[in-house]
């Protein structure tokens, strides 16, 4: 019964229909990171308990089994300049919405003080 136990087979996940689609790539306009993404919007279908507060680029978590229904948020558009930026702390900043680092720095005074401190540490 247990002869195949040694093989760690990848989890089976039905990707029917999706393989045919052309791959969509997310590209950060700040650092040029380019990654395939699965979904853009507020409520990724594979996320059951949570929702996003802003429209974001999302992929199924590549580091855990698909069954677990986890996601990885790649980035979003800057709420000021609309540029597409990734979640790298050197590329974007979230405070009730995603700001690209340039915009965040430009309106730094509108943030609470200890948020400003954090922002000052980022060197563009």
């Amino acid at each position, binding site marked *: 019964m247990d002869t195949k136990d040694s093989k760690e087979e990848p989890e*089976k996940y039905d990707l029917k229909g999706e393989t045919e689609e052309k791959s969509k790539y997310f590209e950060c306009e700040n650092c040029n990171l380019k990654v395939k993404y699965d979904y853009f919007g507020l409520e990724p279908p594979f996320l059951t308990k949570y929702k996003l507060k*802003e429209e974001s680029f999302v992929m199924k978590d590549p580091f855990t089994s*698909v069954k677990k229904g986890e996601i990885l948020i790649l980035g979003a558009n800057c709420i000021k300049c609309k540029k597409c930026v990734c979640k790298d702390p050197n590329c974007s900043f979230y405070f009730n919405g995603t700001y690209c680092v340039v915009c965040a720095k430009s309106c730094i005074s509108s943030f609470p003080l200890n948020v400003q401190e954090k922002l000052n540490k980022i060197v563009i």
Partner: protein
Amino acid sequence: MSKGNYSNNSKYFCDEKRKHDQHEERLTKRKRSSSSEYKKVEYYKRELTRFLEDQGNIQSIEDFWKFFEKYENLQKLKKSEFDRNFLLNVDFKEKPSVIYDRLPVLDKNGRKVNIVYEDFKEFILIIKVYNDFQQRTKFAKLKKIEKMKCELPISQYKSEIISKLNESRVLLIAGDTGCGKSTQVPQYVLEAGYKKIVCTQPRRIACISLSKRVAYETLSEFHSTVGYQIKFEKSKRADTAIIFMTEGLLLRQASEETTLNSYDIIILDEVHERHLFSDFLIGVMKCLLYKRNDFKLILMSATINLELFQNYFVNEHVQVVQVPGRLYPIEVHYLPIIKDPYERQRNQFNCTPYLQIIQTIDEKYPSNQKGDLLIFLNGFSEISKLTEAVLNYSQKKLNWIVLPLHSTLSLEDQDKVFDYPPEGVRKCIISTNIAETSVTIDGIRFVIDSGKVNRMIYYTGGSFNKLSETTISQDSAKQRMGRAGRTGPGVCFRLYSEEEFNKFEPFTPAEIHLVPLESLLLYMISLGLNDISNFPFLEKPSVKSLEEAVEKLKFTGALKLNKDSLELTSLGQALSNLPVDLTIGKMLILSTVFGNVNSILALAALLSVQSPISQSSHKNLEAETLRQPLESSHGDPLTYLNFYKEWLCIKQSSTLVSRNYESESSRTWSRKRCLEEQRFYEVTKLLEQFRDILHDAELLTKGIEPSMSSGERSIRHGELKNLKSMRYQMKHDEKSRRRKQLKYDNFGECVEEEHKTDLRDVEFRITNDFKKLQSLLNDTSANSFKDVMLLKLILTSGLYPQIAVEDEHNYSKTVSERLFHTKFKNFVFLRPTSYFVSNPEILELHDDDIEVPPPNYFSRRPVSRKHQLLVYQSILETKKVYLVNVFRMPVLQTLMLFGKRICTNSSFTKFVFDDFLSVDVPYFGQGSKLLKMATVLRKKWKVNLEHKLENPVRSCNVNEKDVFCFVEDLIRYMNTDVSYNVKRLLTADLKSIYNKQCKFFEGEDLFNPFDDHFVINENVTFGGVNLTENVIYNCLVDEEWAWDMEEQVVSCDATCDLCGVRLMKGATVFRRLQHEVRCLQQQTSGKSVEEEITLKTKSNAKSFECDFCKKSLLLTPVEILRHKKSCVS
């Protein structure tokens, strides 16, 4: 809580907030009034597990609580001035109040769960912060992967690779180890839009590790985008886009075109290694380029001999991308060893030059400057000598740790070279060429290159392997040097001059020039590529080696000539389906005929790995004594089988984490006996692989797993679960610990490791459950003589004509080491670890084994029933020539059963086997009787084999009883008493032993007493007549004693025991045999005996009166001549 106006969509936000707050107030009031027994959230850790899993989708609960604690502590220190929700881009779909109702109702004590709503809201926030933190970590991981990919040297060539691939059908990518080609190119191609990519690897292990790596890098570890397929395992699904597989497997797919059609990119990696089958694969791909135009070919190699590949694909317009590796500048010093021509031992290995360089390093480079030393030597004995010398040298300062590195070391010991030395100490790795390309060690700053390598070369003509010390190629020299410049600038000391370097051959010769070509040939013919000389080989093999391979295949019975074209026999067909060595393949097939599959699988596996007795066992008396009770007097393979069997026993009786120190672990058991435990793990794996091979070839049904009761099943289930988590933990530990610091220890014996669990042990126990182990154990035991003999017969059938006989002077007292002779190689020794080295008396004839020869027979060679020969697995030539893995067999029975050409005289008293051994059987009747038995058995053997090959699997139960009887017959035959002596033929003898005349059967009765379906025909080459495919009768020049014996028989009247008919004098030996057989046949079929025929004498016989002895005889003219001659002398 500060009410921020930082929000952009503040209106929505405020409305929500207000509603929310009203609801909250109500809740807070209600909860507060209900009870006073509120508890902190942490109090309910256990009760909240389900909640966290289901509502929060949290994977590691333990991890969460750790985070929770830290976060709480941090919050105590600073109070946030704004709603921390603003920092989070994710929220629960439902409101906290709704989720609040989902809390568990009762705690573990059955009391009501009471959490203050305010606390709960904080709890929910922490869950979100925790998730946010997870997001950050994961994103950082993703960034790291991308960054690492960009930093690889090859990434700068990405666009060049893609554009050149689009332009051409064949692309050659040359880059040195570490440039990233193996992991990156498949990804680039995938990104460029190709959908079905296959990438071959020479090593199986690389397929698995590369597919894991590429899956990780393409962020698809948990998808099936990237997979691998090796001989017996695959992880491939319909949506797999990149698949790594072994070269052998792609070759197999090349024969089933439908599979191959599905690839649009075929990548062949590491083509510079020039393995036999990778060269062949390149040829097959070249042909395929013309057959199909819907795929592209990418070759990847190190920057070695690019011209060869470029020229080979010149008509296909090959494009080339060259990627320079990461290499720092390296100083090269030529320090040729000047040998004293008068020194007597000038050919012996001298450690001095190496020690001098080590001393120079000590003097010139301060010990705080890091950098290790790598020394390339040719062989094991050189490595041991230098290891000892360097240890001695560093005894005072203790500033060098010496680590030998060669393929016979266990993996554990090999891994030590990756560990790092303590401060101020350097590693000195003394290695064979294994560290040239296969093993890459970082931190090497100094390289000493001896310029020598032991190369295994197969000699055609002699059929033996020679491990000979030769100079390396220029290319190897460059590779060795390059090892010094991987992590920083380095120094390379070459122990040869620049002139010598220039005289080295430019490249290491490809395998096709070094190994026997049987399996390649067999494979080509099975693919229908019969026109071997016209195949577009990357480099053509020599005509001689091809011819020899054809001969060998014919000898094995795999190939036959049909109207001038080569054709596979059914055995050949079956063998071409088994991806193993020819001899092993034959054994495996036979095991399915005889039904002793498991033992043969184990033996075949044991013969396919390196010897389980470790090289260091030399002169270790204690270990020898411990091994002794397990040794088999039959020889090495059966001894190994006993070791393995016992090892399984130890495994069975010792539990995994042995708290019970009375039962020793299999590791300790092996170490005490100087056995390499690694080999037994390999054997266990290989054994299962062989079983799969047989199953795939439809020669075996999948074994029925011993059934388990539900109790057993659940125990096994629990055990498995336990083992798997253990494996996970160990692998995890291994990763996090990575390199250990080396300890300064002359003997390297780590005692504390004895009781540590062993990852290999865990994996062994995962794949082999107790029941399976037990059945394995029962099946591999060979206790009765019958079992052992059957095993030996099957081995012999695979290995014949690899037999050796003892030198006749072996037992004189002056001989210190016994010598053996094979047909092609004389003066061969046994390996020091061989069973017969410590037990030579087993092969010796004792005084009471030697019989008094019959009158008229004289020979200085002893006549006995106990002559034995050795069957060997291979011949290895190093400084001496050795027989590898030998076992003993009775001489005559073995030769008659397996000899390819059996020649005999007119009275069956003398036999010559395969131009190698001559046997006198000076008792009339014994020879013909044994030969008769042998021919019957051979025929049955063949029929059984063909029956098996024609009706695989399904009918295997039908002839079980037949097989049983057959085995009984075989054993009886092997035990037949027959007295004879043995002589090894020399080249000079071969000129005079065959009579090359065949007048005997003119006008004779052509009934064949050996095989009535075989038409007796003349043999033009040797003389006499063919009685079966293998037996030539009456082709030997008779000696006097044989004449006399024949004379005596022929000149007497005799009465047939069966029919009572008188056989008159003058009836020849052959005629008498014909009568006997015919009589027996008729008796059994119930017919009465037709008399007259048997009474007829030879038609040309005349009555003759001898002038010397005055006898009156009835003789043929030839016999008259003989008689005269014998009378005169």
